C-alpha cells in the first residue's frame, strides 16, 4: 500500500493554517472569525498527529496534545460565543465593523 508522505500532510496543515488566518483577517462576522480560529487550531492538530505517527510513533505525546487542544478550543468557543451574545444584546449586530467605540 502506498503511504501518504509526511510532506503532503504538512503542506495540508500549513495551508489550512494560513486559510484560517486569511479568514480571520477578511471576515467581518464574529462567528465566522471564530470558525477561522478553529481552522487554525485544527491545522495544529493535524501537525501533531502527523508528526506523532510518522516520526515518533513509540510515544503518544502528540496525540495527547491534540486531544487537549480540541478540549480547550471547545472551552474557548463557549466563552467567546457567550461574549458575542452579550455583545449582540447591546449592539444588535455581530459585525465587527459595528463594534468600533474604542479606537486610537
Amino acid at each position: 500500500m502506498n503511504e501518504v508522505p509526511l510532506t503532503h500532510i504538512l503542506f495540508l496543515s500549513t495551508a489550512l493554517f494560513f486559510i484560517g488566518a486569511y479568514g480571520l483577517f477578511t471576515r467581518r462576522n464574529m462567528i465566522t472569525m471564530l470558525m477561522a480560529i478553529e481552522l487554525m487550531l485544527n491545522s495544529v492538530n493535524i501537525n501533531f498527529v502527523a508528526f506523532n505517527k510518522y516520526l515518533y510513533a513509540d510515544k503518544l505525546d502528540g496525540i495527547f496534545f491534540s486531544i487537549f487542544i480540541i478540549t480547550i478550543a471547545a472551552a474557548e468557543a463557549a466563552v467567546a460565543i457567550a461574549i458575542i451574545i452579550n455583545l449582540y444584546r447591546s449592539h444588535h449586530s455581530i459585525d465587527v465593523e459595528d463594534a468600533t467605540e474604542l479606537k486610537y
Partner: protein
Amino acid sequence: MLNEYLILLKSEWIIIAIIFLLLFIKVGPKDWKNETLLYGINILLLFNLLAGFYNNVEGNLFNGMYHSTQLILLEKNILNLGVYLVSLIAYPWLKEHKHLLEFYILLLSTLLGMFFMISSGNLLIFYLGLELSTIPLAALANFDLHKRQSSEAAMKLIISSAFSSAILLFGVSILYGTTGSLSFYEISQHIYGNQLQVIAFILILAGFCFKISVVPFHLWTADVYEGAPAPVTAYLSVISKTAVLFIFMSVMYTVFKTIATQWYLMIFVLSIVTILIGNLFALRQNNLKRFLAFSSIAQVGFILLGLSGTSIMGIASVIYFLLIYLFSNLAAFGVITLVSAVANKETISDYKGFYKTNPFLSWVLAIALFSLAGVPPTAGFFGKFFLIMAGAERGNYIWVVFAAINMIISFYYYLKVVKAIFMDPNDQPIETISIPALPKLAMIICLAGMILTGFFSWIYEYIYSLSIL
C-alpha cells in the same frame, strides 16, 4: 509520596480550596451581604499571601511536568501579592456589584492557571496553564455587562488571545516535530538552530509577544484596557502580564538557550521599537486607562531590553522591575478605580484641580507616575537602571542610550498628568472622595513598596541570589 503532592502543590491547593469555598457560598441558600463577603475574601487572600512564605520546598512532580524552585516560589509570592492588592482596590467597584462571587471565582481561576504555567516543565502543562489564565480573563473583561465598551473589549480580547494561542501552538507543533519531545529540558537538548526550528521559535515568540503586547502585536491592548472595568484592567496590565513574562523568561532562558546568540538581537530590536511606539502613542491619549495601557507597552519594552542581556542579571533585573511595576501600576489603578466608581470620570482633563479636593489620592497618583517614569527617589528608577545595565551587557551601547533617551520622552506624558492634577485650574474639580479602608490599605502598601523597594538593596540581592541561568 502523598505528602510530596501536598507540599509541592501547596499554593495551587490553597487557591483551589478558596475557589471551591466561594462556589459553595454561591450555590448555598444563604444570601450574604457584599461587604461581609469582601472582607472575608480579602482575609482569605491575605492568608494565601502569607502561606506563600511558609514551608517552601523545591522539587519535581509528574515526571518533570511540574517543577518548583525557590525562584518560582518567589514569583508566585509576587503574583499572590498582586492579586491581594487588586482585590483590595476593587472594593469600591465590587461593593454594589451583583456578581461579586463570580468575579473572584474567575479571578482565582486565572491565578491558578498562572501558577501552573509558571511552574510548568512541559509544553502541555504550559499550554493548559496559559489557556486557563486567558479564557476567564475575557469573561472578566466583560464584567460590566450592560456597558457597550466592556463587551467590545472582551470580544477583542478573546479573539486576539485565541489567535495568538493558535500561532503559538503552530510553533509548538513544529518544535515537537523537530525535537520529538514536549519537555523543556529534552527540547533544549535537541535545539540546533536549523531553519525549521527558527521558524518554530519565531511563531512561539509571536504568540508570546501578543500576550505581553510587544509592538507589532500591541493593537488589542489599548482597546481592551480602556473598555474593561478598571480593576480588571489593573489585573490585566499587572498580574497577567507579569505571569506571562515570567514563563517567557524561563522558556527563553532554558528551552532556547543554545540559540541565544540568534534571538537576543530579535528581542533587542523588538524592545527598542516597543519603547518608541509605546511612548509616541502615549503622548496623545486623554483617557487615563488608555494612557496607562500605552505606558505599560513602553514598560514592557524596557523589560525586553533587560531580557536581551541573556545573563543572570537579566533574570534578576526583570523580576525586580516587575515587583516595582506591580506596586506603581496598582497604586495608579487604585486611584483610577476609586474615582471612576465614585465620580465616573476617567479622562485626564477631568483630573484637573484634583489636588485641591483630594490631596492624598493626588499624591498617590503622582508618586505612582513618578515611579513609572523612573524619577530617582522612587523605586522605578532603580528598576529601570538595572534593566538598562542588563541590556548593556551585550554591548549595544548606542541603542541602550536610545532607550535611555526614551525615558526622557516618557517624562513628558507622565508629568502632563501630574501637571493636570497639581497645577491646572478647574472650576468643577472632582468632589472630595472619602477613601474606604481597604483601598486605603492597598494604596499605603503600594506607596511603601514604591519608596522602600528602591532603598533596600537586599531585595535585589536576594532575587539575584535565587536566579539561575
